[in-house]
């Protein structure tokens, strides 16, 4: 098993097939397909089913993804150690982020990291299911997970740095007339809403329950998989929506943004395995700790946690 074969294997997975992988890596398609065949021959298993002209991961292929990512990170780490002066970080920071948390604090922290280490790169990937928060780390799919706390299985052996609390606000189109103050989930105005199926995490479940118990069913204008379209739709006047607090506050001047009542909140943070950090990973952890220390030492208002 060659590192290059492993890299090609991951490229096929990430780019949905031989063509995509070849384009992404800037090599010819037969090169990729040859490398895949020889990797399969070496391992003695099929990694992909050939379905028509496409490729579909086999069970064996799926279970190779995590270890492959871990392997490539470790290879990078060795290269870094050999090639570089101590304070130069070039590797890749590898995070999976739950969609509802992919805004505000974590983006700011990663942006800071990029600024501090201009030669490093970041993979800011999608954690679809929060219950996998710890297994994706243990299986090597990524180095850091950003998810709600506490983590599902207690996260034995893993470390957690809390970043803040997540909360949902209601936003309505510009010019919507609503009484001042927070809006109760049990008394949502009769304004059509733009919802995302399963907003995510236990907070949205609490919200759903509160609405259900009160028998509130605001009309649904749009049910949209594309989270990023929620605010643009609100601003275009399509309807109201439920969005993360940081997003709601960003449109306060143009749209009608209100906290909700009760304020269901849940903390979230970064989870990682302290025993297998790359150099880039260690630098990121040091930065998070520094930020937290500043917060604890500085004037802190417990109600408004920035991160």
């Amino acid at each position, binding site marked *: 098993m060659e590192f290059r074969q492993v890299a090609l294997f991951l490229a096929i997975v*990430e*780019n*949905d097939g031989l063509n*995509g992988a070849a*384009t*992404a890596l*800037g090599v010819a398609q037969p090169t990729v397909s040859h490398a895949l065949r020889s990797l399969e021959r070496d391992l003695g298993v099929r990694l992909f089913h050939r379905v028509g002209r496409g490729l579909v991961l086999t069970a064996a292929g799926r279970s190779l993804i995590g270890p492959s990512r871990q392997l490539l990170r470790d290879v990078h780490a060795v290269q870094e150690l050999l090639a570089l002066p101590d304070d130069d970080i070039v590797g890749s920071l590898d995070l999976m*982020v739950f*969609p509802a948390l*992919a*805004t*505000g604090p*974590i*983006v*700011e922290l*990663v*942006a800071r990291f*990029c*600024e501090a280490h*201009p*030669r*490093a*790169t*970041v*993979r*800011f*990937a*999608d954690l679809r299911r929060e219950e996998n928060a710890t297994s994706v780390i243990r299986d090597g799919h990524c180095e850091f997970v950003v998810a709600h706390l506490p983590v599902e299985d207690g996260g034995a052996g893993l470390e957690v740095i809390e970043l803040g609390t997540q909360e949902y606000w209601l936003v309505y189109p510009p010019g919507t007339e609503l009484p001042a103050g927070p809006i109760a989930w049990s008394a949502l105005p009769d304004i*059509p809403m733009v919802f995302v199926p399963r907003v995510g995490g236990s907070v949205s479940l609490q919200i759903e329950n509160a609405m259900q118990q009160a028998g509130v069913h605001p*009309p*649904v*204008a*749009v*049910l*949209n*998989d*594309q*989270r*990023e*379209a929620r605010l*643009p*739709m609100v601003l*275009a*006047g*399509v*309807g109201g929506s439920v969005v993360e607090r940081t*997003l709601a506050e960003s449109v306060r001047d143009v749209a009608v943004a209100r906290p909700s009542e009760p304020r269901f909140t849940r903390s979230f943070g970064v989870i990682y395995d302290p025993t297998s950090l790359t150099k880039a990973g260690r630098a990121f952890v040091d930065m998070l700790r520094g930020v937290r220390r500043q917060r604890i030492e500085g004037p802190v208002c417990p109600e408004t946690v920035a991160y």
Partner: protein
Amino acid sequence: MDLHLVTYFLAVVDHGGVTKAARALYISQPSLSQSIRTLERRLDTTLFDRVGRRLTLTDEGAKFELAARRIVADVERAKQQMSAIRSLEAGTVDIATFSTFSIHPVVELVRRFRSSHPSITVRISETKGPAGVLSALRRGEAEIGITDLATDHPGMTTIPLCEQELVLAIPAHLATDLPDPLPRTRVREIPLVVDRGSPEAVVNAGDLFGTDNVVVDCAHPTAIWEFVRRGTGGTVVPRLVAEQQMPDAVVIGMDPPIVRRVGLVTRADELTPAAAAFISAATRPANEG
């Protein structure tokens, strides 16, 4: 058990006898009696006690009456629902598209449709690129695709809508001295925040993304915009998204430009009323609303 037997049974109950019920139903009395016997035989029970010329419900018959009234109400509700859908007073239109189009043109299309059909819900599914749109249409998961018309859509009906230009949105401090438009080959000089896994990134990868100029490979569109606003790197987005979401960024076209033809795709078979209404709202000239 047929629906007409259930309605005949209720008619007999409501009119208090076969003779009056037959008259109300415009059928002959023997034929109605025959129908009631058929119903009893199918249910394997006796619904009426025949005492002289009067019919009274048995215990079984009384139980069946409750069930029968529920069935008739269900049928009525289903009919109303269908008629509401036919007349566009209710229903859902299912749309498949992918992230490049999530803001432009989807937001405007949905706004137009909802302003003329406020009782119909729009369901938008995210698919993996044009191929995903095509298979969602084939499997019947969506009725309308909003997609790139450069892809072949065999056996489907395509309706061109507009063109979309992909541009660079670059934080000001990274955009000094860049010409507009920028030769595609020079895009590799700019630190970028893009989703390498997205279909359009794969198509354009060889051209635009080198091995080390993608500083953040980011799967979350809102996070990409935030990274650009914070100055981490530039990104490649539709012009409208650049202008609306990253107003402080410098917007630069590419040379040659990346322009795609955006359109609607549907199966060639008959459309539901909601889907037909969506298409007519989408293709109406903008000034009509």
